[in-house]
């Protein structure tokens, strides 16, 4: 008898399938590509010339925050909306009835998130560089920070998205539950407003979550070193960024393992 295909082989096939579905679905294309661009253009136009520090415009600050948000959009928001829909429309039930290993499904999601993020961030960076005075990372160190911040952010927010997919009661209602969470984090984490101008309690609140640290790490990559003066601590605190994101990877893993389910609640 032939042997079962390996988890990795099926996972690879799932990545291809997920990407086909992702890029063919107009809603996800809108959420993940058009919406960040629209925000970028609106904020860029409104706050265009305002300096937040000598030689640093708010737009530059904002583009770095949007790149950090891109992590959240393509992983957390994307999965926390897509998985409840898949649970509701029978996708997960169908898969559960096949010999596909569950880990292959997660490989497929992670691969899809990764490609979607690279595509989104490439567009954001291209627009930022072309129109809003963002500089590409110039040192090896900055590129290194960009890669580890992206990876830690993607891993933690992917796991959190998988875990959070149990919260929306219906597939259709998922975006109404998930989008406000993302928005609140963006408002409080130094994406839409300059972080050190926020009230102290709001800063403390945002510091509990990954986006604040992700945005800070992205600013260290895309803003000149002089811009570190607008950080709360007067420096980029990259060690702390890495630590908090790593802790969230651990929390995300535990939550995903404990809470994720294939079937709708009350159906076993």
């Amino acid at each position: 008898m032939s042997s079962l295909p390996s988890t990795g082989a099926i996972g690879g096939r799932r990545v291809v399938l997920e990407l086909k579905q992702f890029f063919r679905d107009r809603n996800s294309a809108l959420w993940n590509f058009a919406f960040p661009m629209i925000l970028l253009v609106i904020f860029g136009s409104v706050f265009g010339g305002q300096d937040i520090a000598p030689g640093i415009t708010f737009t530059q600050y904002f583009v770095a925050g949007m790149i950090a948000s891109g992590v959240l959009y393509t992983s957390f928001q994307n999965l926390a909306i897509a998985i409840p829909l898949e649970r509701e429309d029978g996708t997960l039930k169908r898969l559960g009835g096949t010999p596909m290993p569950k880990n292959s499904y997660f490989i497929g999601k992670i691969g899809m998130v990764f490609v979607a993020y690279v595509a989104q961030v490439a567009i954001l960076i291209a627009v930022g560089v072309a129109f809003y005075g963002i500089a590409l990372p110039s040192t090896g160190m900055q590129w290194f920070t960009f890669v580890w911040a992206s990876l830690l952010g993607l891993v933690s927010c992917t796991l959190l998205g998988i875990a959070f997919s149990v919260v929306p009661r219906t597939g259709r209602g998922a975006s109404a539950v998930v989008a406000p969470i993302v928005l609140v984090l963006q408002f409080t984490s130094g994406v839409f407003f300059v972080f050190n101008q926020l009230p102290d309690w709001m800063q403390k609140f945002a510091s509990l979550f990954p986006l604040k640290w992700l945005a800070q790490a992205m600013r260290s990559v895309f803003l000149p070193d002089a811009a570190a003066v607008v950080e709360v601590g007067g420096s980029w605190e990259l060690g702390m960024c890495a630590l908090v994101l790593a802790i969230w990877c651990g929390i995300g893993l535990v939550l995903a393992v404990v809470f994720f389910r294939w079937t709708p609640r009350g159906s076993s």
Partner: protein
Amino acid sequence: MITHVSEAAISVRGLRKGYGDVQAVDGVDFEIAFGECFALLGPNGAGKTTVTEILEGYRSRDDGTAEVLGIDPGHGDRHWRSQLGIVLQSDRDLGDLTVAEAVHHFAGYYPDPRDPDEVIKAVGLTEKHKSRNLKLSGGQRRRLDVALGIIGRPRVLFLDEPTTGFDPEARRDFWELIEGLKAEGTTILLTTHYLEEAEHLADRVAVIARGRVVACGSPAELGGRTRGLTRVHWLEDGTLHDVRTEEPTRVVLELSARFGGEVPGLGVDRARLEDVYLSLLDGDREAADEDFAQGGDAE
């Protein structure tokens, strides 16, 4: 993995499953032999789908034993799963893929899949193989479900109300497809509320009501379980007369003697599975009413 020595492809004993106060499955027993097509027949809410989903490994059971290919469905591994085919009734998933993409993709899950293009042909979707699944009609969609259910060359195939919403022609085509799988030796568990379908496809039928099997046998045998269901009718004094009898031959002979030969408008209708089924359900309802009258627990 421990494989029990078992003659049956599927065996169920004392199966129970409740949801809150409702006992959806209340002590079900049956065995399905290898290569057999077995139909669970019953009204909506009778427990058919719950039994099927327990055997598919989707639901847990409260009590009793269940084995599919010698394995407890609650503990089936990938190897076990690769020998099952499940035809689901869903209509929206995989919508952004084409028929061919979906069938080829699912083939990649199995150790020894059928040829995807041949499966697409067998379910009659060759002309639609480049269509997005979202654009398929209800009947075409169900054929895709069948294609995905049989792509892995299953030894046991679960069909849960597979032809609901089919027009008669599509149903005939579907039956032919299932007969082909039977001929190859596939064991099939079919749930349906179409009696004609059970009669046409199934080697044996279990009638299930209120979570219990109320009758089980071949479609022909089931007819023998209920008596007095053969109807003899004729015309006399310009009106239609009829009697229900266990001895239709005697009735016809008596009539013939009375009319002196030819009986006007004579007809003899043997019990159809539908009559048997309805009488079984009636009997079950009466039993339930008695339970209720005695203050017993009707559930």
